[in-house]
């Protein structure tokens, strides 16, 4: 475990805090809008896990490919996807980042290098390897990152991907958000191997497990891996132990676990932890204004016309 300290250069800490607040406020608003039936479909919020998204994506370039899973909003925001088109996507509007064709679990923003979320657990792990391979064969120094939960680790595609990534020494960083729950059941009900970093140990890749609710620790550990991948190394695995504050999906009654006591959450909350260290307030208010602006913009967008469907099946 790496313990983070607030020894950050310049305004890095403020940027991390600001990003986390944008994610937190966006996600909470999405939860409300889901209940109001303005945001549609299966919605999985990352409240509580913002430190991972911010700590990782804030260091990536737009031409570095990032892939994500069904709990993708935070990763997308941290990678630079603008809030208005993101919210419009969740509302199924034409102004959505995917023209309303993808929705919450399938957000893509090619311009920002967010090559996509997927609704199939573990389904895009190999795609990240492919993007890493392309970067290398085309002569660039891009890296690829893929976020996945601990639930993805028990799938065959995970092992296939780790094996090839190590065999081919691809510049890809596998970021596991281990929140202890695979959908509705604890990790202990799925596997006897507690740490994801132990699962991959035989493959010999550089790996680390950090406190994912300590954004500084995430950032530091990821920075080392990013340097390695950028300079031709890889792959790497970063396991971030974190906590999903909300249910698996919006509306999940969560009969399978006890709610975290408020005082315990205060100790864990990645935002409060950094905010106390930086002694800075104000980003929450700023984020609320940004998110409200995004909501209003999204509401003003029309639904896509039916002709869009036939246009988009084939390139």
């Amino acid at each position, binding site marked *: 475990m790496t313990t983070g300290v607030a020894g950050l250069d310049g305004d890095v800490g403020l940027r991390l805090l600001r990003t986390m607040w944008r994610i937190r406020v966006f996600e909470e608003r999405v939860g409300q809008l889901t209940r109001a039936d303005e945001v549609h479909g299966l919605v999985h919020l990352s409240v509580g896990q913002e430190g991972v998204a911010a700590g990782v994506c804030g260091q990536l370039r737009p031409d570095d490919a990032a892939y994500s899973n069904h709990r993708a909003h935070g990763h997308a925001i941290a990678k630079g996807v603008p809030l208005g088109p993101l919210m419009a996507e969740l509302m199924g509007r034409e102004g959505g980042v995917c023209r309303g*064709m993808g929705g919450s679990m399938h957000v893509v923003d090619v311009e920002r290098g967010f090559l996509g979320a997927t609704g199939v657990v573990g389904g895009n792990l190999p795609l990240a390897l492919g993007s890493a391979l392309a970067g290398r064969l085309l002569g660039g120094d891009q890296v690829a990152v893929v976020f996945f939960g601990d639930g993805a680790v028990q799938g065959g595609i995970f092992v296939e991907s780790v*094996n090839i990534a190590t065999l081919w020494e691809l510049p890809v960083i596998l970021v596991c958000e281990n929140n202890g729950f695979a959908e509705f059941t604890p990790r202990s009900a799925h596997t006897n191997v507690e740490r994801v970093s132990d699962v991959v140990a035989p493959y010999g890749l550089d790996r680390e497990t950090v406190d994912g609710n300590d954004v500084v620790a995430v950032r530091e550990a990821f920075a080392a891996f990013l340097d390695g991948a950028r300079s031709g190394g890889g792959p790497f695995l970063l396991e971030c132990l974190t906590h999903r504050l909300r249910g698996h999906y919006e509306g999940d009654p969560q009969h399978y676990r006890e709610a975290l006591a408020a005082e315990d959450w205060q100790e864990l909350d990645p935002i409060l932890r950094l905010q106390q260290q930086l002694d800075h307030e104000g980003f929450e208010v700023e984020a609320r204004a940004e998110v409200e602006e995004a909501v209003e913009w999204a509401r003003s967008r029309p639904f896509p016309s039916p002709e869009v469907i036939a246009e988009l*099946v084939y390139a």
Partner: protein
Amino acid sequence: MSETTYLHAITTALAEAMRADERVLVLGEDVAEGGPWGATAGLADEFGAERVRNTPISEAAITGIAIGAAQSGLRPVVEIMFIDFLTLALDQLVNQAAKAHFMSGGQLEVPLVVRTQGGAGQRGGAQHSQSLEAWLTHVPGLKVVMPSTAADAAGLLTAAIADPNPVVFVENKSLYFRREPASDASAAIGSARVRRQGRDVTVVALSRLVPESLAAADELAEEGIDVEVIDPRSLVPLDLETIVDSVAKTHRLVIAHEAVEHGGFGAELAAQVQAAAFDELDAPIVRVGAPFTPIPFTPPLEDAYLPGRTDVIAAVRRVLGSAS
């Protein structure tokens, strides 16, 4: 005229595509060694191990890697050694590749070719012999190509590599070593070819059933039955117009493929033709396909199972209303 084989045509087309565009790479099990039939033989010598990549036996991951590589600027050609093993990569193909362009609102393109081969007759048993193309035609976003000649194998593979969409290129192992005239004719995906002109019955045949149907047509011609044989060459997109034009001339249609008849592509084709040209049909459409059983291993039963020339002849007689 010089001769070639279907297999050699594929090797040549791959090499030409790799020479023309350094973004093209080949990956799959044993491809650097040429694969079980030699489709990729010699490519590793010319283009090196970075562009001709041997992979572990991980069909899902290699397909997914190719999808990601395609999204990020390469033009990968994946080999799935047997179409039977495509089952292992279906999540990648169906949920990732086929939908990426659509779900991203047109932002992503996946210029991916998945080369694979099916077909029975080699005593491979029921897990190395299937014809599963109909599954793939059920997935919007995929293109499905099935060449039956060496010239089309080359031309359509070149077109598939140039296509911005995921294309599944379905070969048939029993066609690989037939000697045919060499040709550098180009071929467009979505364009059927009339292989033989005829007045009395239209036979639309896929892959190996094309040469079988041409042999059947020769035999029937001796009795004065004039059969037109059409090879759609690609199932998605489908050149329905060429087929309907033929049916408007012959008024009788037989559809022949090696795949299991039940739920096969022939059912879709029959439905489309009757919807487009019901009034042109003088008899119910007759399908030729394999029985609804796994493929038997034992040689006499596999031979009996496989649809071929005699089944097409019987189907033509049936659609003409004459007893077989």
